[in-house]
């Protein structure tokens, strides 16, 4: 775990130019009473508390509670707040995988992602290759991730170009009848909620 003191460079090696630039901007903003180090630390903590485990809770609830699932599909952010998850100004649209439809999310223009629910996106999601190819050849991209979508299933790509952020509600794996929400959460991965994977099979946990 890295030292969180604002004045210590990472790993005690010389700082890169951009590390120094970052430190300089932060110090100047603090000196000008615009943003304090405490506000930055707080902002880091807010993001640290977010992660796929929160999305997994929402998915598992949707799998076990049909009325909640309808509310989730109608207004994703309101449903998250209902579960006590503070998503701030996130405008979440949840798209449901079915036997006929597989959804995958991309932001071709930058890297928009439901951060207030899932935390920071993986580097590949922000990569030029993912952003370029997923819009045009999603099946090939999914195959690269190890997911082969059958020809009779429709692939829907969602390009988050504006204010909405997207979450895939993966298909509930077979062989999970009678599982509790807590057990089902273990099957829900970040990649399944982006749409580049399916939820885990029971045998995998």
């Amino acid at each position, binding site marked *: 775990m890295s030292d969180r003191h604002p004045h210590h460079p990472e790993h005690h090696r010389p700082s890169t130019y951009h590390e120094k630039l970052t430190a300089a901007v932060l110090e100047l903003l603090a000196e000008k009473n615009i943003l304090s180090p405490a506000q930055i630390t707080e902002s880091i903590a807010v993001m640290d508390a977010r992660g796929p485990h929160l999305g997994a809770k929402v998915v598992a609830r949707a799998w076990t509670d049909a009325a909640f699932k309808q509310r989730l599909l109608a207004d994703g952010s309101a449903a998250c707040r209902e579960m006590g998850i503070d998503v701030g100004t996130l405008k979440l649209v949840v798209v449901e995988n079915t036997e006929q439809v597989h959804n995958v999310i991309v932001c*071709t223009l930058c890297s928009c992602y439901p951060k207030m629910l899932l935390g920071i996106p993986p580097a590949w999601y922000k990569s030029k290759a993912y952003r370029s190819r997923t*819009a045009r*050849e999603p*099946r090939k991209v999914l195959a690269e991730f190890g997911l082969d979508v059958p020809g009779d299933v429709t692939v829907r*790509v969602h*390009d988050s*170009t504006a204010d*909405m952020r997207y979450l895939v509600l993966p298909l509930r794996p077979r062989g999970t009848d009678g599982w509790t929400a807590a057990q089902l959460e273990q099957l829900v991965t970040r990649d399944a909620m982006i749409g580049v994977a399916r939820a885990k099979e029971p045998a995998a946990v």
Partner: protein
Amino acid sequence: MNARFKPGQRVRVREWYPPGHVRTPYYIRGKSGEIERVCGVFDNPERLAYAKADDPKTLYRVRFRQSDVWERAERPNDTIDVEIYEHWLEGT
């Protein structure tokens, strides 16, 4: 909300190529699709980019068939949904 377009309506993305901060991707300009939903009214990012929060616009999700967007789509009936502001859309 005075939304000009309704879910299910066919629309075409304008073939504009302006400079500036634009959130309508290059690949979708001039393409035709269907309104999937009306997302609501939001400040125009083209003006927010210059610190002006004075231009509310209706935002839509528009669904396109991949074969209407790319010359060699993997499957014609696969779709791509893109969020597009009203001033970028025209009725067909």
